[in-house]
């Protein structure tokens, strides 16, 4: 049996959000485990991580997003290790556990004898969105947005249940192709870019 699951890594840096009742913010990574027990992951993030982490910068990123310009945090980039096989719980597994080996919370979104086609859609969506150099906005267009978009395009639900965790911007829709970027209102398209 194969599975596709969303793992939620908590961001200790966002503990302030917990104080206002939203819980710790989480980063979503999608993990596919095939029938042989081999796992593959996808993740994404900002191209620049040394930016001053201030509310004004986060607000400016919202403006940059409206103009589709890189923000102070840069653009939304795909992890270059995406779709590289790994073994869960080993020391170099940074998708499903913290550095000490404590499991992250997760939500299984698909289970079946062969999920390879859905996984390929997820991998291709991550690569396609990464090529568009979309604005990175920590609160509104981020790695969780990419995860949500990839899940939807693969025909899977974005977890929103008691098992899911607070993941800002997971329901933001993103374009994955230039034609969608040019005409956001048009149905999904796949141009040759």
């Amino acid at each position, binding site marked *: 049996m194969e599975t596709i699951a969303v793992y939620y890594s908590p961001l200790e840096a966002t503990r302030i959000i917990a104080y206002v009742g939203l819980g710790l913010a989480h980063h979503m990574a999608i993990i596919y485990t095939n029938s042989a027990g081999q796992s593959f992951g996808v993740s994404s993030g900002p191209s620049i991580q040394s930016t001053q982490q201030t509310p004004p910068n986060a607000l400016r990123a919202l403006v940059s997003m409206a103009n589709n310009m890189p923000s102070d945090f840069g653009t939304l980039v795909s992890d270059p290790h995406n779709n590289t096989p790994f073994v869960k*719980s080993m020391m170099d597994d940074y998708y499903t556990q913290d550095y000490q080996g404590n499991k992250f919370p997760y939500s299984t979104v698909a289970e079946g004898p062969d999920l390879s086609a859905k996984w390929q859609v997820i991998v291709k969506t991550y690569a396609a969105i990464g090529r568009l150099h979309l604005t990175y906005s920590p609160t509104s267009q981020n790695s969780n947005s990419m995860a949500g978009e990839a899940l939807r395009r693969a025909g899977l639900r974005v977890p929103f249940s008691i098992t899911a965790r607070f993941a800002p911007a997971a329901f933001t829709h993103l374009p994955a192709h230039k034609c969608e970027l040019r005409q956001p209102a048009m149905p999904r398209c796949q141009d040759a870019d």
Partner: protein
Amino acid sequence: MLAALLAFTLLTANAQPRLDLRENTIVILADDTIPAKGLRATLDENLHDVLVDNLMDKFHAMNAAGQGIFQHDVSPLIRAYFPPGQPFAETVRILREQDLGTLTKFKGMQDPAGGTMYVAKFNLMNGMFSEVYVVLNFDFEGETEAGMTLKKATAMLRGGNM
């Protein structure tokens, strides 16, 4: 989401990224009256700064390249601190004195070809929306911590973000 952002603004108006770097200036005087222990501590302090400076250089180079930070092997930068054969207690001492985290036993899957795996972590940047840190992995051989010696140490630069 906007409400959360406004809450950030109100509650953390002066928030800045916290860089876990000890800002100090090393001054070694030509004075043979400096106690041996004090001189050694001063030199150790300098080693910490060299290590963190090298890691920050790597961090900034990756930002300049716009490639994002996910997981990157930076083992060559820490090898001089943790050579093979180093006693367990010496590794603990260096971590403590150099402010490089606390050694704990790894709870995940042990490397079948390895000994006993331990980990430590220290932050390079801890901001409101993302964090950048270094994970130190230690593979020790031996039955008890008192008798363990280091087989291999590796280091991973990792980033976390929303």
